[in-house]
């Protein structure tokens, strides 16, 4: 009899799921809409009164659209960065989450008419209000925004023109808290977001000058134009009869810009992007042209990945050796304390440790992002290294240690001359393995604003709207970094075990 393998079980489960899901989707008819509740108010956020529900103006627009279609709305939580790919795959019908209208999106997805106009505004510390009035005043300064947004494109343009340094964040809360702390000098983001954050941080003000403007649209899979057209009609009707206005008034987002936008949109069938879009992107470049354009940035990011991994590994090895020695040779209280430290580090996610180091400690000590990344990765891996070294030290036969003592070697000499060198050889394969893992785990530091290889690839992919070529280039670069290390380690091992068959 053939035993069930793990693969069989997984496939079986997938078949059951696949068979089950259409029935769920059909009855009752639903409008499945995607968003990221982590983005928060006023877009979509978990209802403070009932965390299983979401609230926000997008939620009310979804209700309005669903009612117009005779369906019931169902919210599907998805990470912001994955919304586009998910809707294109058919995970849900439409995305409503402050999605900007860009030529790149127009080229590859079905896009609704715009339902809200936003302005990009520059937020600075009140003390700097007089000297940082616009982007051109921020030469050589760090200006934060969200990656893959219109604001990011405006910043990269300003980088070329006036030398500002764009810093990308994954969320829209930390740019403002880091601005308060002085880690950055300005934030460029949508007025909707800026207004909320400035209200929460009394030390910040937004400059009145408009840096750019754009529109929020709903996005659907490219083949879903029929549904898109029906939704456009519902939106236009809601613009005419004031239901959209009521929603935006309720969320304090109504202003003259919206009035003018609605007037234009409902007046005639028009292509709003053709005459008013201020997006920096022109036509989407060919993939190979795009690779040529992004390659220098990717190579630079690969160097950051490699450099960060090397120094972090050096820290991990140094701390790992000390911790392992303490656990093998130290007195009992020290052994207990070190064991507790190792288990804490190993038992909690690296991502959490990075957040705590960079954001959590920010009120006590402000670590620069790159240093926090080095410390986070280095100390995390130190815990794993120390376990490898401890195991390797304990694997050296006790007889050799007796022989060393009988010859008069001190404990320290025995460790340095006899136990350590042999333990290092035993540990090397595991260390090589860890270094390659660290090389890949270093991609996590993008959450604390370090742009390394994976982050740069994701920016690249979001800008050209495809992961195929950027993903392949990125994978090739990671392999280029890791294969020589594995090769060198294998040669070293072979050298040690000469003649051993």
């Amino acid at each position, binding site marked *: 009899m053939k035993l069930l393998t793990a693969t069989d079980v997984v496939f079986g489960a997938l078949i059951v799921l696949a068979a089950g899901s259409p029935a769920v989707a059909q009855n009752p008819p639903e409008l499945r809409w995607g968003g990221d509740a982590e983005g928060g108010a006023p877009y979509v956020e978990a209802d403070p009164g009932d965390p299983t529900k979401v609230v926000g103006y997008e939620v009310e627009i979804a209700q309005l659209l669903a009612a117009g279609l005779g369906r019931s709305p169902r919210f599907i939580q998805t990470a912001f960065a994955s919304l586009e790919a998910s809707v294109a795959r058919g995970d849900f019908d439409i995305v409503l989450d402050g999605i900007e209208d860009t030529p790149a999106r127009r080229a590859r997805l079905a896009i609704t008419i715009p339902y809200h106009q936003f302005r990009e505004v520059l937020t600075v510390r009140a003390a700097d209000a007089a000297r940082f009035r616009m982007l051109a005043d921020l030469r050589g300064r760090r200006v934060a925004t969200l990656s893959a947004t219109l604001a990011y494109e405006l910043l990269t343009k300003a980088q070329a023109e006036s030398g500002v340094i764009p810093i990308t964040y994954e969320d829209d809360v930390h740019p403002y808290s880091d601005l308060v702390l002085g880690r950055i000098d300005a934030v460029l983001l949508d007025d909707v977001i800026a207004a909320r954050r400035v209200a929460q941080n009394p030390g910040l003000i937004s400059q009145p000058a408009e840096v750019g403007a754009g529109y929020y649209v709903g996005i659907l899979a490219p083949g879903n134009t029929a549904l898109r057209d029906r939704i456009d009609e519902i939106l236009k009707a809601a613009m005419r009869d004031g239901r959209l206005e009521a929603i935006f008034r309720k969320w304090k987002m109504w202003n003259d810009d919206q009035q003018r936008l609605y007037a234009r949109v409902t007046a005639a069938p028009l292509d709003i992007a053709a005459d008013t879009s201020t997006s920096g992107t022109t036509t989407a470049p060919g993939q190979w042209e795009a690779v040529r354009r992004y390659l220098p940035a990717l190579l630079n990011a690969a160097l950051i990945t490699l450099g960060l991994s090397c120094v972090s590994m050096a820290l991990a090895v140094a701390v790992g050796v000390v911790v392992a020695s303490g656990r093998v040779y130290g007195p009992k209280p020290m052994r207990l304390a070190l064991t507790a430290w190792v288990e804490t580090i190993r038992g909690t996610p690296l991502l959490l440790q990075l957040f705590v180091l960079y954001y959590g400690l920010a009120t006590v000590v402000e670590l620069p992002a790159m240093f926090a990344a080095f410390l986070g990765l280095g100390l995390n891996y130190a815990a794993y290294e120390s376990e490898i070294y401890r195991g390797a030290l304990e694997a050296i036969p006790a007889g*050799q240690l*007796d*022989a060393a003592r*009988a010859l*008069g070697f001190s404990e320290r000499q025995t460790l340095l*001359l006899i136990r350590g060198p042999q333990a290092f050889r035993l540990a090397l394969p595991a260390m090589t393995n860890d270094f390659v893992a660290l090389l890949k785990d270093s991609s996590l530091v993008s959450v604390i604003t370090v742009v390394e290889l994976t982050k740069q690839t994701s920016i690249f992919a979001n800008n050209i709207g495809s992961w195929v070529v950027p993903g392949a280039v990125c994978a090739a670069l990671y392999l280029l970094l890791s294969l020589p290390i594995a090769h060198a380690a294998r040669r070293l091992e072979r050298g040690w075990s*000469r003649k051993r068959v």
Partner: protein
Amino acid sequence: MSAIDVAGLYVRRGNRAVVQDASFGAERGDILALMGASGSGKTTVLRAIAGLDPIAGGTIIIGDVHVDASRPLRADGRRLLHRRVGMVFQFHHLFAHLTALHNVWLAPVHVLHQSQQQAEAHARELLDQLGVGHRVDALPHELSGGEAQRVAIARALAVGPPVLLMDEPTASLDPERRGELAATLRQLASGGTTLIVATHDVEFVNACSCRVMRMEDGRIR
């Protein structure tokens, strides 16, 4: 003056006394064979003298080093003891990452602070005398059992201990080599080294014409 004097030695393992009230001595240049069945306590006696296991009672006096159960040695006392007593283990316990030659000169350089040149020359000499001069560059795993045993003896001799303890030195030797080892030990003894050899090899004991002491259940008969 005795080279070594053991009086009323007790060694415990947990609650069990594995060596009880052992007393004996040896003069400079003596070869003392400690005979007895497996488990009779021979190895334990050697390990206690070498300072590898703590003693529960009695005294051990080796030249200027006095070991007393009631006053455990501090680090410097232990270091001095290790200079006075060498030990060759039943299994060779060579340092696995070093060549035969390197195994032999490591302690003279790092413990006795000899120059590496001097220590290496002496190491070659010892390995030549023990018949393994052609194996200086071999790693321990490349040596036969007998070769490894002789490298281990050279390693113990390199630091020149006045008292050398050997645990079953013939266990991995063929009969021909056994005779050679007996000759080597006689030569060492005539040079002034005191040897205490734990063994149950009667032929070997006869070959090195040594004084015999029997152990049974942790006691010397």
